[in-house]
């Protein structure tokens, strides 16, 4: 099969792949990574077109480094994204603005004329730019074969034509199916992101092949290239006047990155989250850096490789792999260039079709009575079909331009001329963002002035070079006026013609904008819009209340109008949401002004703000407003927003306080309950000894005939029980004092082993008598700690006495251990008794707690021992805990910090 057929099939296969990606992405739109900042940053790389892909190498090979200005500008502009682009995004999202034409029109009082002007200039600037993409596809094709992709005869045997139409189908399906343009097109954006990745991959692939496959790395290429006569010029900034070029070309690309309709489309309209800018601010410059790494090596490599052959430098990237017999790599590179071209065409057509439709077609119908009556109830169809017709029209125009005139231009110049045309929006756009006094008249005069100069300096020469205008204009000036000589405008000859054109057009454009704005007045609606635009961060949450509207409007009329464009369901849903958010009662016949503004905003998403304005006024009865009222409502809104914020803060604080109160209350209640429980338990515990004392006292009193032994035993019991009461009372008082923090422990350095021995001295014998063995595992090397000796002895005795109580009746054993563990001294007392169930373990330190399952009921002891022990250990900044398993004994341990 002939190679040209393989290339054609690959091209169409690539387009089909795009359809698949877009279709898949639309079906899976809920996948979060499809809406991630990475996809957003990649979609911005639609900036890199076929002109970049082929033209950069061409420019680098012929002119040197000035190709870089196209990338340095955007990289320099990236840090400003947060300041400028974020504001544009916020405004556009708040007002449902979808194109740069709508943005400028809306800022200057929803002006029809400005919208139309911006649209016309964009189309004039972009059509040639699109046509050079087609040219790039066709030129790259012709490298593969002697046959041209462009048929010599009629369009139907021209492959380029079919490719154009497939792209058109793609844009119609994925870029314009929705009437409401403000909705995002995830499918289209995903496909663009893929294209960005693909062209980067292909270009870097080629770069690596040339640098490391054909040569031995960067230094090899640069060393070898020194033989070229122009080496010095190709790798330096150039002579002095070049600095002027650099400045203006950088400025140009800085502006283009925001103002090109396709950039506005991906950066603003398709932005799903302002915060994506943060990642895009470094990811996008990184992308530009990566795609340029190999431009100079490839250009120099190409110059060296084709040193004796007349090969157009624009085609080096394809010619090199082909000449070294790497057809597959060449095919990949071709598809990379193809993707760069298609992505540019796709996004530009999407953006321009919305502009053409909303700012030329719809206003035309609305302003013409006959037409508007004819389409009265079918405006939604007009909007939808209109966009689709515009897409086809745009593509046809590009195709025709390419076939009829485009063949005569080089890639580079048209791109830059296009940039300069689009840059004419900059004063009106940027001024409108930050300067409230900039007005519609200023914007119109500025743009027209800039456009005219641009046309004279930059467009006319290209028309002349295509032999469509007499050459005399170049030598004698326009209309024979020498000041209007395109390449020596006003008699000045500095920099190249693009730099000149940019400088003069922007200079006069800005001056005109500022002067005319300062000298003329804004209309009331403009005033209102300019306030909202410049101070968008104050109004964006409450845009509807910030626009003054007076008159009479009925819900039914508004709903009917909206339903036509948004459909019944979306309209109802939108109203419901709006009512809930703004506390508006439903069911009334008359709509308040916020509803009118909201409806107009929704409509703007579909038809642009100027047309939305006209459509709304056709269904509502509007009254005139005066300037004072506008300022009043702006102030009102600002106050409302700040009040709202304050209220939110206050209620937040209130909620916090009440939560704190609730917690405190719960704590108090719990404390109260604990205190009650404690008192009732203490009195209860006292009843037992008192009962015995009373019973035996009565018995002794009533029975004089008791035997001496019995008598003695009863007396002894009375004394014992009295002591028990005393102990209990002492412990309760002890605990109370500790709880109230009244006890100050006197601390002294202690060796815990000695303290332990001293404590055991007093009990060891009585324990052993019960047949219980005491095992001591003492770490002799533990350091001393600060503690209160008597209190710690109290704790140890308590633990030992508990252990003794719970040891098994036979073979009872108590194990006592001391050890040094991570800056603490740990002392544990373990018995081999029945153990404590897990759920009871946490509670044993509570006063009077007795594990429920216990067979022995406090043979002695008050039930306060562990509670007091815990308090003592707490006072030492230590910790006490229990670890036990039912059936395998209980271990109670405490640890004290070494200071």
């Amino acid at each position: 099969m002939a190679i040209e057929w393989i290339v054609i099939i690959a091209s169409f296969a690539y387009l089909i792949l795009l359809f698949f990606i877009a279709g898949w992405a639309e079906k899976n739109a809920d996948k979060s990574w499809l809406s991630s900042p990475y996809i957003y940053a990649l979609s911005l790389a639609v900036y890199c077109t076929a002109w970049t892909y082929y033209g950069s190498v061409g420019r680098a090979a012929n002119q040197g480094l000035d190709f870089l200005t196209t990338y340095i500008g955007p990289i320099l502009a990236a840090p400003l994204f947060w300041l400028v682009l974020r504001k544009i995004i916020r405004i556009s999202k708040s007002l449902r603005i979808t194109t740069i034409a709508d943005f400028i029109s809306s800022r200057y009082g929803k002006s029809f004329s400005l919208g139309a002007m911006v649209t016309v200039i964009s189309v004039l600037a972009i059509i040639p730019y699109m046509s050079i993409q087609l040219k790039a596809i066709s030129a790259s094709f012709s490298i593969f074969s002697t046959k041209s992709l462009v048929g010599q005869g009629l369009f139907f045997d021209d492959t380029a034509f079919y490719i154009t139409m497939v792209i058109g189908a793609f844009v119609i399906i994925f870029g314009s199916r929705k009437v409401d343009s403000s909705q995002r097109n995830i499918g289209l954006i995903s496909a663009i992101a893929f294209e960005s990745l693909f062209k980067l991959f292909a270009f870097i692939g080629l770069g690596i092949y040339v640098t490391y496959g054909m040569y031995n790395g960067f230094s090899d290429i640069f060393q070898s290239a020194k033989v070229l006569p122009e080496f010095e010029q190709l790798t330096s900034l150039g002579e002095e006047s070049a600095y002027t070029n650099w400045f203006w070309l950088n400025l140009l690309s800085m502006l283009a990155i925001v103002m090109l309709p396709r950039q506005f489309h991906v950066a603003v309209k398709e932005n799903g989250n302002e915060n994506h800018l943060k990642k895009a601010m470094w990811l996008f410059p990184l992308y530009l850096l990566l795609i340029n790494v190999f431009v100079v090596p490839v250009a120099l490599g190409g110059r060296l490789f084709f040193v004796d052959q007349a090969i157009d430098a624009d085609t080096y990237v394809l010619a090199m792999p082909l000449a070294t017999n790497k057809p597959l790599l060449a095919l990949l590179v071709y598809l990379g260039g193809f993707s760069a071209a298609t992505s540019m065409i796709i996004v530009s057509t999407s953006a321009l079709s919305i502009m053409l439709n909303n700012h030329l077609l719809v206003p035309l119908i609305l302003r013409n009575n006959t037409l508007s009556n004819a389409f009265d109830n079918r405006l939604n169809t007009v909007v939808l079909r209109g966009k689709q017709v515009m897409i086809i029209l745009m593509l046809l125009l590009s195709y025709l331009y390419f076939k009829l005139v485009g063949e005569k231009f080089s890639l580079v110049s048209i791109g830059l001329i296009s940039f300069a045309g689009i840059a004419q929006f900059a004063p009106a756009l940027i001024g409108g963002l930050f300067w409230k006094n900039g007005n519609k008249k200023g914007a119109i005069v500025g743009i027209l002035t800039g456009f005219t100069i641009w046309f004279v300096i930059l467009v006319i020469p290209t028309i002349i070079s295509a032999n469509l205008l007499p050459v005399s204009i170049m030598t004698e000036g326009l209309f024979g006026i020498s000041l209007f000589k395109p390449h020596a405008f006003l008699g000045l000859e500095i920099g190249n013609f693009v730099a000149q054109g940019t400088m003069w057009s922007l200079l006069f454009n800005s001056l005109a904008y500022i002067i005319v704005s300062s000298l003329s007045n804004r209309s009331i609606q403009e005033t209102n819009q300019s306030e909202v635009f410049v101070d968008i961060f104050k109004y964006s949450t409450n845009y509807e209340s910030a626009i003054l509207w007076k008159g009479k409007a009925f819900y039914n009329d508004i709903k009917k109008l909206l339903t036509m464009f948004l459909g019944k369901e979306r309209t109802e849903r939108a109203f419901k949401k709006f009512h809930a958010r703004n506390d508006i009662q439903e069911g009334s016949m008359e709509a308040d002004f916020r509803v009118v503004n909201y409806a107009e905003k929704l409509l703007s998403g579909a038809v642009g703000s100027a047309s939305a304005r006209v459509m709304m006024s056709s269904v509502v009865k509007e009254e005139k407003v005066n300037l004072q009222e506008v300022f009043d409502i702006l102030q009102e809104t600002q106050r409302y927003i700040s009040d709202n914020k304050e209220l939110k803060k206050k209620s937040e604080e209130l909620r916090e306080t009440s939560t704190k109160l609730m917690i405190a209350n719960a704590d108090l209640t719990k404390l109260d309950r604990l205190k009650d429980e404690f008192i009732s338990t203490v009195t209860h515990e006292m009843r037992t000894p008192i009962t015995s004392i009373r019973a035996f006292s009565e018995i002794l009193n009533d029975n004089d005939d008791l035997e001496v032994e019995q008598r003695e035993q009863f007396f002894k019991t009375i004394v014992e029980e009295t002591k028990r009461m005393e102990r209990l009372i002492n412990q309760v008082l002890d605990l109370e004092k500790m709880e109230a923090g009244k006890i100050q422990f006197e601390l002294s350095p202690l060796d815990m082993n000695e303290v332990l021995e001293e404590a055991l001295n007093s009990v060891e014998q009585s324990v052993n008598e019960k047949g219980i063995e005491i095992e001591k595992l003492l770490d002799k090397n533990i350091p001393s700690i600060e503690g209160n000796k008597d209190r710690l002895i109290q704790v140890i005795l308590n633990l030992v006495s508990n252990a003794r109580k719970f040891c098994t009746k036979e073979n009872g054993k108590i194990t006592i251990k001391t050890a040094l563990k991570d800056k603490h001294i740990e002392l544990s007392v373990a018995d081999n008794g029945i153990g404590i169930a897990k759920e009871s373990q946490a509670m044993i330190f509570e006063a009077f707690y007795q594990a429920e399952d216990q067979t022995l009921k406090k043979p002695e002891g008050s039930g306060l021992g562990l509670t007091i022990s815990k308090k003592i250990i707490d006072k030492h900044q230590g910790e006490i805990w229990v670890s036990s398993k039912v059936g395998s004994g209980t271990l109670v341990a405490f640890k004290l910090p070494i200071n």
Partner: protein
Amino acid sequence: MKKVLIVDDEPNIIMSLEFLIKKSGYQTFIARDGSEALAIVDKEIPDVVILDIMMPKVDGYEVCEYIKKHKKLTSKVVFLSAKGKESDIEKGYAAGADFYMTKPFSTKKLVSKVNELMSLTT
């Protein structure tokens, strides 16, 4: 000889009760918790049971209910408990007690109550 079962977990209280009951001319049995009490009740069928309430394992209420549920057990039950709240006393009678006394108790009153209940038994 008529039989009295003393159920309590405090050794000193048991000692005093044992003295008082023996002196009144009855045979005494001792149980230190509820489950011991149930075993003796079944075996000896005492005429009067002096019953503490708060004991490990099986508490006094349960012992009383057990006695009153089984027809063959004709024992009279006197609760002797440190629990003195209205609700505790009601709960004791609801369990079927014949009398409820709180600790500390009057020895004379206890003895006379036991005698009184004895006269009701056959």
